[in-house]
């Protein structure tokens, strides 16, 4: 009996093992194929106190010879960059990348450095890396002391810390689920504010709920005073603040929201700082001092005055803690809701309307007066201000009798691109709270009064349910952005990096958009602001409505290798008027299987780096002839090798609209210096002059070219490429041929562009068993026809072919222009039966 039991038992265990293996495989393999290698994978530690110097390790691949850390925002300086004496043991990461190099340096954090996230890139001798992030705390930073399993998991073994401390901790992968408890001493009436950074400091490109943590504040007896998991301010990262009831010890517990047996680094800020949840009004006119109330702090509301920046947009207002409250700066006046009135009249537009949906049953109404058919942009900020509500708007005309007409506009959510957040093709909305704020262009059907109703579709409301609605005539704005479109939107420096080897040039394709604004009136050219000495942006005229354009930078031989942040402006080619344009790059972090990003690191400027000279330059000459519709054009590509560089060079076309077909990257072999770029124009390609540029790259044996790390790249000059009408157009009537028959197939020539000499034609698309007899026919610009003598064998494929066409080689200026033309039909028939003859007698 016992043996039988054991056998069944073993069999069942075997099944379980297979299930476990399958389950592990499911979790281990990312949905998208291919490695997603990046230079920078880990930055450790993740946080430091301002006014201190922190030893930093930056781990990844291809980090040789680090020169500089370039931050997007001021306050941190990196010094003493060097490679680690011993590289870290190579380890593979879930998204197919790996780590085998480490940079050591020190971050010198200024005392006035802004708390929170700081984004940077590392400039090495030859590369500019993808972004890394580092965080700054206003508090003393210590490490969690948990040397043994579950050491600080109980109240009696909580780690004691002092108020105003940031603890760098780790929730470990232990089977019971780790939780970390910290003990602080507080006084009655004192504020205890706790914030956790976990998702926001995650280094991970790929992950899931292991970064989601929860927070509780307990009294010394374990009674819960406050708890938080997700919230409207920091999304997945919890925040809680309480007024302490008595002089006593208190406990701060950090645990996982969802059990996941993986190590998760976090920082918990434990302070007595104010932690308001909202500012009201949540914005003001640019460049002014605005009186506001800070709402939601456990010690009560506070009135204060804040300085609104001079530039439009959102900014963070800090009140002593590790994070800020978002506030909006607008270039027009504020209007505050009349709390006791059913409707608040709006005296003028543009305007910023400010209100609070303070209960589940509350809704606000505003009375606007608008012009018929004039487009207005109505943009709501609520979730994006950290407000817990989910605003929906409804606009109805007020009729002559004072009643309300039919709903003319109703909007709940909008795409993030409607909020001018661009280049975010990744799914899951990337943790951007604008995703649930409506923003819309509204064109009133009539002039006069309208009522704008504001409701909270989540049905919650509350004292911190602030919102702000900017109503203005549709503005004219231009945004530029760098978008990486590789697997799971891994940031690719080939696609979006601004790295110019000294004495060379580099070209990137810059995306252009107006978001919800309208386009500039005229064609324009871009101007770079903040370029280092010796670097210039090659001017080019950009037509309005252009959405992608190659932008080229050149660095003089004498330019000094360095990295810097730059912004762009635009200048009208017609009026010479200069105006600012937005610059943004939005990089997703914590991508889930299938590409859902948890959060997005958002940058509002670009980093450009001049690196050491590249070992080669690449050149093309402006084509002397046009690329004709339906035709091909071979562009010779030359590289000039410098020093003793003999390695292979990969080249590709750097920019091409959809109507131009470009070949895949080709390689110029070691020691060789020439290649050919074969372009083809579709038959409907627009007749225009395009920028043509060729990019050259060294080859890395382990890292694919599309990801960028480990490669040195340069660009040719941008040359004009014209797309023109074809030289000739051939047409043919449908014809037929029988097996065993010889017959001429005639094409009629229609001349578009004269040429000298004789062109040659080849017939393409013939089926098996049918062939042209004799040499390819020639014709001149005077010829009317091209005739192909055909012969069909006895085994020629029967039936009709409809895709016959001609490849025409036209001699122009000593070059041969290849074009394809025509669409012929040929039917192959069987041999006719011979008539029966009389039998021999």
């Amino acid at each position, binding site marked *: 009996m016992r043996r039988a039991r054991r*056998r*069944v*038992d073993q069999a069942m265990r075997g099944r379980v093992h297979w299930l476990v293996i399958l389950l592990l495989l499911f*979790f281990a393999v990312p949905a998208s194929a291919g490695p997603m290698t990046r230079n920078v994978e880990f930055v450790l530690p993740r946080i430091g106190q301002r006014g201190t110097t922190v030893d930093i390790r930056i781990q990844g691949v291809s980090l040789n010879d680090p020169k500089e850390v370039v931050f997007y925002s001021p306050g941190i300086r990196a010094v003493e960059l060097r490679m680690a004496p011993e590289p870290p043991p190579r380890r593979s990461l879930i998204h197919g990348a790996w780590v085998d190099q480490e940079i050591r340096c020190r971050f010198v954090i200024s005392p006035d450095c802004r708390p929170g996230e700081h984004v940077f890139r590392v400039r090495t001798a030859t590369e500019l890396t993808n972004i890394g992030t580092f965080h700054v705390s206003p508090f003393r930073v210590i490490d969690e002391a948990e040397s043994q399993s579950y050491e600080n998991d109980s109240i009696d073994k909580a780690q004691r810390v002092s108020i105003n401390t940031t603890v760098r901790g780790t929730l470990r992968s232990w089977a019971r689920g780790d939780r970390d408890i910290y003990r602080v001493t507080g006084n009655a009436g004192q504020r205890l504010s706790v914030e956790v950074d976990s998702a926001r400091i995650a280094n991970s490109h790929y992950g899931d709920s292991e970064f989601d943590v929860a927070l509780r504040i307990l009294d010394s007896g374990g009674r819960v005073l406050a708890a938080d998991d*997700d919230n409207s301010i920091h999304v997945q990262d919890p925040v809680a603040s309480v007024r302490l009831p008595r002089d006593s010890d208190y406990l701060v517990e950090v645990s996982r929201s969802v059990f996941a047996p993986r190590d998760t680094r976090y920082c918990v800020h434990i302070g007595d700082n104010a932690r308001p949840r909202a500012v009201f009004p949540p914005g003001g006119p640019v460049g002014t001092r605005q009186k506001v109330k800070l709402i939601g702090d456990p010690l009560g509301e506070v009135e204060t005055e804040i300085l609104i920046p001079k530039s439009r947009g959102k900014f963070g207002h800090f009140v002593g803690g590790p994070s800020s409250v978002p506030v909006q700066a607008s270039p027009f006046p504020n209007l505050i809701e009349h709390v006791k009135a059913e409707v608040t009249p709006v005296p003028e537009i543009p305007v910023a309307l400010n209100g609070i949906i303070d209960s589940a049953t509350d809704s606000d109404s505003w009375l606007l007066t608008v012009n018929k058919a004039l487009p207005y942009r109505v943009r709501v900020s609520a*979730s994006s201000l950290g407000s817990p509500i989910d605003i929906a708007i409804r606009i109805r005309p007020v009729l002559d009798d004072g009643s309300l007409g039919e709903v003319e506009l109703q909007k709940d959510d909008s795409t993030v691109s409607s909020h001018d957040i661009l280049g975010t093709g990744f799914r899951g909305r990337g943790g*951007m709270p604008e995703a649930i704020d409506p923003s819309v262009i509204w064109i009133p059907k009539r002039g006069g009064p309208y009522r704008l109703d504001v409701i909270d579709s*989540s*049905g*919650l409301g509350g004292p911190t349910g602030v919102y702000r609605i900017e109503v203005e005539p549709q503005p004219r704005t231009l945004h530029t952005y760098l978008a990486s479109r590789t697997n799971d939107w891994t940031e690719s420096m080939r696609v979006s990096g601004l790295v110019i080897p000294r004495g060379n040039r580099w070209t990137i394709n810059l995306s252009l958009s107006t978001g919800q604004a309208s386009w500039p009136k005229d064609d324009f050219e871009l101007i770079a602001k903040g370029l280092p000495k010796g670097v210039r942006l090659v001017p080019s005229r950009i037509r309005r409505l252009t959405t992608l354009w190659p932008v080229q930078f050149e660095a003089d031989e004498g330019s000094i290798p360095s990295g810097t942040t730059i912004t762009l402006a635009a200048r009208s080619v017609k009026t010479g008027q200069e105006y600012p344009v937005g610059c943004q790059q939005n990089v997703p972090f914590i991508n889930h299987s299938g590409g859902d990003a948890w959060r997005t690191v958002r940058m509002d400027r670009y980093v450009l780096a001049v690196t050491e000279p590249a070992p080669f330059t690449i050149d093309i000459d402006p084509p002397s002839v046009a690329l004709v519709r339906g035709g091909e054009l071979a562009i010779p590509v030359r590289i000039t090798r410098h020093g003793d560089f003999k390695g292979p060079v990969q080249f590709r076309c750097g920019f091409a609209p959809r109507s131009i077909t470009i070949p895949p990257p080709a390689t110029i072999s070691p020691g060789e210096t020439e290649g050919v770029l074969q372009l083809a124009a579709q038959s409907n390609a627009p007749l225009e002059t395009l920028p043509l540029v060729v990019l050259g790259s060294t080859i890395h044996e382990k890292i694919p070219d599309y990801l960028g790390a480990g490669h040195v790249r340069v660009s040719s000059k941008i040359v004009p490429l014209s797309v023109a009408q074809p030289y000739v157009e051939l047409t043919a009537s449908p014809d037929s041929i029988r097996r065993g028959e010889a017959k001429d197939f005639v094409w009629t020539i229609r001349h578009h562009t004269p040429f000298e000499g004789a062109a040659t034609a080849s017939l393409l698309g013939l089926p098996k068993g049918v062939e042209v007899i004799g040499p390819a026919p020639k014709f001149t610009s005077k010829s009317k026809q091209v005739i192909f003598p055909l012969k069909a064998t006895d085994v020629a494929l029967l039936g009709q072919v409809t895709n016959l066409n001609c490849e025409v080689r036209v001699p122009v200026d000593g070059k041969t222009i290849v074009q394809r033309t025509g669409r012929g039909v040929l039917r192959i028939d069987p041999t006719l039966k011979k008539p029966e003859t009389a039998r021999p007698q």
Partner: protein
Amino acid sequence: MTAHVKTKITSLTLLFLGHLMLVSARDARAEDHSSVSFRRDVMPVFFRAGCNSGTCHGAARGKDGFHLSLFGYDPKGDYFRITQQMIGRRVNVAVPEQSLLLKKAIGAVAHSGGKRFAKDSEYYRTVLRWIAAGAPDGQADLPEVVGLELSEERFVFDGDLTKEKGATKTDDPHLGSLPFRGRGGEVLRVFALHSDGSRRDVTSLARFHSNNASVVSIDENGLVSPTGPGDTNVFARFSRFTIGAEAIVLPPTEEFQWPDPPATNFIDKLVFDRLQKLRIAPSALCEDETFLRRVTLDLAGRPPTPDEYSAFMADRNANKRSRKIDELLADDTFADLWTSLWGEQLRIKGGNYAPVGTHIKAADTFYGWIRTQLRNDRPLNEFVSEMVTASGSNLINGPSNLYTMLVHAPRFRPKPFAADFSQLFLGIQIQCAECHNHPFDRWTMDDYYGFVSFFAGMDRKPGVESRERRIYYDISAPPVRHIVDQRPMPAKTLGAIKPVDHNGDPRRALADWLTSPDNEMFSRNLANRIWAQLMGRGIIEPVDDIRVSNPPTNGPLLKALSKRLVESKFSLRSLTRDICNSRVYQLSSQPNTSNRLDTRQFSHARLRRLRADVLMDSVVTVSGVPRNFAGFPEGTRAIDVYPRVAGDTVGPHFGDSFFEVFGRASRATICACETKKEPTLSQALHMMVGNTVQDRLHAAGRIQQIAQSSESPEAALERLFILALCRKPTVSESKQLMALIGEDSKDIAIWQDIFWSLLNSTEFAFNH
């Protein structure tokens, strides 16, 4: 020439003029046959004859090319199909006897349904008269049927053959002055009540059925005949109404003696009243050991520990059972067990890739919210109300997950949601009324579509991060439309005449109505479910199929429990305390002669196989070896486990193979039947040879410790029995097992075998 002959000639003349002919003929006859109405007179004939039943022409696509609305929910459509669809064939107003309707019904021509009534029947004459009258539609102002009445509310038959039919009173004081019959049959007469206040005998047009033919049968004329002792209900159906009467067949009085047990509370009084009426004697009070195990399993989801056993058995206080109940109710485990039950009913499942908003995080948020409410003894009406009105982020606002979890589907669909909502919170299944009025209950299509409209604007939209969905009510969404005539059906509570007033989102009004102390449907449903959880069977069973034709086995008891729940401000703990303190709950499972066959009246404790999760936790508790569940931290109890899957959550999921074998709900549907209570062979095999018991025999050293640290083999045996079964071994058991242990009492293998046997005993797997 008589008027009749004249009109006949007129009709024949116009025979080939189609519709005009019919109208003319109808007009011509209106005077003579104005009393014959299609809706009032003819449709009941179709109903009585079964023509419009689901197996005949009432099927979704009709039968043999002829479609009638099921049980006549669409008179207008039926009239059209009979008179207009095949003009001159189904009804022939010129020669009424030649109407196919009649010829098929009497079997004069081939008819798949056979002969439905005789040519000389009242039904034939009614239809003939109607056709002869020009087949008129019923007048719009005809009074509607608004209800039914029965000639009797209750039949009591005495199983004693010495009783004669026709006696007018029982001699049983507990049956009072109820009409009392002997062994003979009695006719149940049915009366239709009309909107104009009139009353009509429709016995000949009604249909009848018995809920238990082995107690009483009822024939097509309403003749009720006893067939065996017991209690059941007989029903009559007419128009859209069903009405029932109780039928009791008393067993013989010989050898029955009412033991007159003391009543602890209202529950005992009502149950014992009923038992005494039915001549069923309740079992004796169960022993302390049995009570301790029963109540610990029921309230804590695990067996008592040896320490708890010792403390309880040593307690000499007369109120120790009551104190134990209070102790268990005060523990969070009670709330955790009920969290598990609610989680099952609310179909909580979490996936790691859940595009429909059911990510593990959302499931955790919902689960955690429920647990907090129950630990705080939140009134159940408030608990439900908050879910019903919830909106917002499914990751932040736990109760909003009602709208992602209750029906796992890529998109929110109001109809299935409304059906599941009703089934869960009211115990009422309204989905039948989507296509026709409910055949066995009072719910009409108007009720159904009005109720669905509460959710017409519900929707889910993506949130800020990938796992998040925002639940909201789109106030611009129109109400759903009636499937028959496309009328917009504004949100209306079940049984109400007028739609609710609301501000765009009608859910507040729904929640107010649903959870109101005055809404007995809600409190009754909750009380019945709580009762069923503790007693193993609902007073209405199944608990999620409450309808007129499925009445409570003890109506006063259910009413009292429902009232008590309301009085206690919907406190789960309060009602549970009442039930557990009742003598009825504490009765022995050992039946006596009179209650051996009783399965409905709670005369003895019901043997209940442990729920899958409770069984697993029981094994873990007694063995001291934890069981890990995929996706949960080590040490998680089975009752805290809900299905977590790698992928989406739309399909059925059990969360663990053990749960599947032991019948935990897959949460694929809302049906209470998803939780399987029956023991199966695979369960027995799993316990015998599966890893659940096997892995725990050798691990943790508990058996070894017991065997080696006990003073004697007898003491070790006693500790093992107490650990596994919460009782000491009987003398017989002890004797037999000591013989097995023999001299070598330190041989662990023998103790493991004994422990294995205990865990494989029916006694361990059942609450008794």
